[in-house]
């Protein structure tokens, strides 16, 4: 099938009211959830997932992608109006957004955030359409040894770049990999860590682990310290962004979008570093760099372009290789699996209509984001006023219903509670949860591909070095490890000096 045939196949799948309504609803839910202080885009996607079980696969995934995109933008609203980033990715937006709000230019800052987000989102989606197919056709040559080395590389980078301490990130990933071994052995069918309980034979339910790790710790944190959100909501002011201002910032928006696309397509890096890098580049190139940090419109544009540029690009490794680029795409990979789809190169052959349907939906989502975003900016006051004492009990109840609905099994609710406490302990000790979840998803794939490779070669490890692709990934893994260890040694030396 050629490109036009693929587009037609995708259009036949999503060219209906239900799919577009799901996308619209998703962007709306995401924007609202992202704008609520204390909620995050990750939590919003995780909590929406159980509602999609009864939907068609394409409708469900479009809804979740809508929540993802809306959530990333929504996070910028409280960042600008109350100096509280709704998502970690919006932290860079605070730097210039809030000073603008203090000067009575919140409307202008939010307008620029919206336009920059939509532009970056569009560029990111186009990058996804251009590169995912190409990468997938390349990945069709991959066998189990190549996939093993690729997943190993992804895990190294994910554990290394998440959080302040790389060792804690690595520990988190290791715990996720260990937890993924629970259940029946994939080759021999014998029990592993099932403790005689039949509920554990199928392994731990992904959604119970996910919601336990990302939603319950927030509820427990609220129980630990039940504080209402602080910060005064600034008024929007009368001024809005003009086309001349958008044109002035356009270069920074495009640069930020490409930074987002590049960093987003590497598994594990995520939106926050992209936003900060885009911001610092805009500042470096600006003739008025002294204005940055004091309420410069270009600063808002650059950081929002950076974090939204990531959104489409993280789907490149997801769709082409089956590797989640960040924690939200890890949840979306779960949605694919719930609906019987396995993302990866074979999906471009077996489910090309779904792939192109998603591409079309993503392009349309940028338009929906623009529409919903402009309304959400004005309606933020009502969202920010939702009392946390009502929000968090509601989240807890939603978690219980959502997790139960996966398998109609109360045992999963217990797994969620236990994982919630694990997540809370990790949160309190600055152990990042993202490597845990991503390793939990990639663990079975890593082990499967390793054992398949061993079976193919009659247990000879030489197969893991069989060609240029495996060598390439081994080299990347080695380079990443060296960089991570060097950074760790340098950080330890700095601390040593400081303590003397």
């Amino acid at each position, binding site marked *: 099938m050629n490109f036009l045939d693929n587009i037609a196949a995708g259009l036949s799948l999503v060219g209906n009211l239900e799919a577009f309504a799901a996308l619209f609803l998703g962007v709306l839910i995401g924007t609202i959830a992202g704008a609520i202080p204390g909620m995050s885009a990750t939590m919003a996607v995780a909590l929406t997932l159980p*509602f999609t079980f009864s939907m068609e696969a394409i409708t469900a995934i479009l809804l979740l992608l809508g929540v993802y995109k809306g959530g990333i933008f929504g996070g910028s609203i409280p960042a600008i109006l109350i100096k509280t980033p709704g998502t970690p990715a919006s932290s860079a937006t605070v730097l210039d957004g809030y000073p603008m709000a203090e000067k009575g230019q919140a409307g202008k800052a939010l307008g620029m955030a919206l336009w920059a987000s939509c532009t970056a989102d569009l560029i990111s989606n186009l990058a996804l359409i251009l590169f995912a197919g190409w990468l997938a056709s390349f990945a069709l040559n991959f066998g189990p040894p190549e996939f093993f080395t690729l997943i190993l590389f992804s895990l190294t980078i994910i554990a290394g770049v998440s959080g302040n301490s790389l060792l804690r990130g690595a520990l988190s990933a290791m715990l996720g990999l260990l937890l993924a071994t629970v259940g029946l052995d994939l080759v021999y069918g*014998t029990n592993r860590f099932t403790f005689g309980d039949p509920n554990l034979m199928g392994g731990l339910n992904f959604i119970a682990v996910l919601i336990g790790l990302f939603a319950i710790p927030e509820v427990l944190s609220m129980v630990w310290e*039940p504080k209402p959100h602080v910060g005064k909501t600034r008024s929007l002011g009368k001024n809005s962004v003009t086309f001349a201002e958008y044109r002035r910032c356009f270069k920074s928006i495009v640069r930020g979008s490409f930074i987002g696309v590049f960093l987003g397509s590497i598994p594990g890096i995520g939106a926050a570093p992209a936003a900060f890098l885009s911001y610092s580049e805009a500042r470096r190139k600006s003739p008025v760099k002294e204005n940055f940090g004091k309420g410069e419109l270009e600063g808002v544009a650059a950081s929002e372009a950076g974090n939204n540029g990531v959104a489409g690009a993280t789907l490149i490794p997801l769709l082409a290789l089956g590797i989640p680029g960040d924690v939200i795409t890890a949840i979306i990979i779960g949605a694919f699996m719930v609906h019987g789809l396995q993302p990866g190169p074979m999906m471009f052959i077996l489910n090309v209509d779904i792939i192109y349907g998603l591409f079309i939906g993503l392009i349309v989502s940028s338009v929906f984001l623009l529409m919903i975003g402009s309304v959400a900016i004005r309606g933020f006051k009502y969202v920010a006023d939702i009392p946390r004492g009502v929000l968090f009990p509601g989240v807890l109840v939603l978690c219980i219903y959502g997790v139960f609905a996966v398998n109609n099994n109360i045992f999963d609710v217990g797994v969620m509670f236990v994982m919630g406490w694990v997540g809370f302990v990790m949160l309190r000790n600055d152990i990042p949860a993202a490597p845990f979840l991503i390793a939990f998803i990639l663990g079975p794939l890593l082990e499967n591909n390793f054992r398949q490779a061993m079976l193919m070669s009659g247990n000879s490890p030489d197969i893991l070095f069989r060609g240029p692709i495996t060598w390439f990934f081994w080299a990347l893994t080695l380079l990443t490890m060296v960089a991570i260890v060097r950074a760790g040694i340098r950080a330890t030396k700095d601390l040593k000096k400081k303590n003397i």
Partner: protein
Amino acid sequence: MQSIHRQTVIGLAALLVSAIIILIVIPTWVSSPSNVRNIVLSPVFWPYILSGMTVLIGLGLVVTGFYSSENLTHEPNDIPGGYRRLALMGAIMVITMFALPRLGMVWTSMLIFVATAALIRSSHPKTALICAVLVPLALYAFFAHVASVAIPQGDYVRLP
């Protein structure tokens, strides 16, 4: 300068957990068929490798912990009674597990909502009470009637 840091404690905990897994849990709870010719294909291979890696990471955490400036204890909580509230929340979760099959999901959720709102000192008790009734009912309506999920009804009051 304090003698022990959080990084060290995390490392020691990782070492302890991996030692328990290697010495007790894997030998007891991972079964491997006797006819497995090569260790790399054995069901115990992967858990042993991962536990071994956890030991290495734990050692790394212990070593780097000696140079850490991070305090073992957290900043004091602005609102006292955090541990008591957490213990109560744990109790709510345990009771939930027992109550779900007996009372049903809707009634249990209403009670959890009220208990959690009270625990986190909701400043809007009336709104919380109204939501405690409406949210579980709305979720029941969606999951039972739209998504066709068999929501547990319990032994006492059944919903349509």
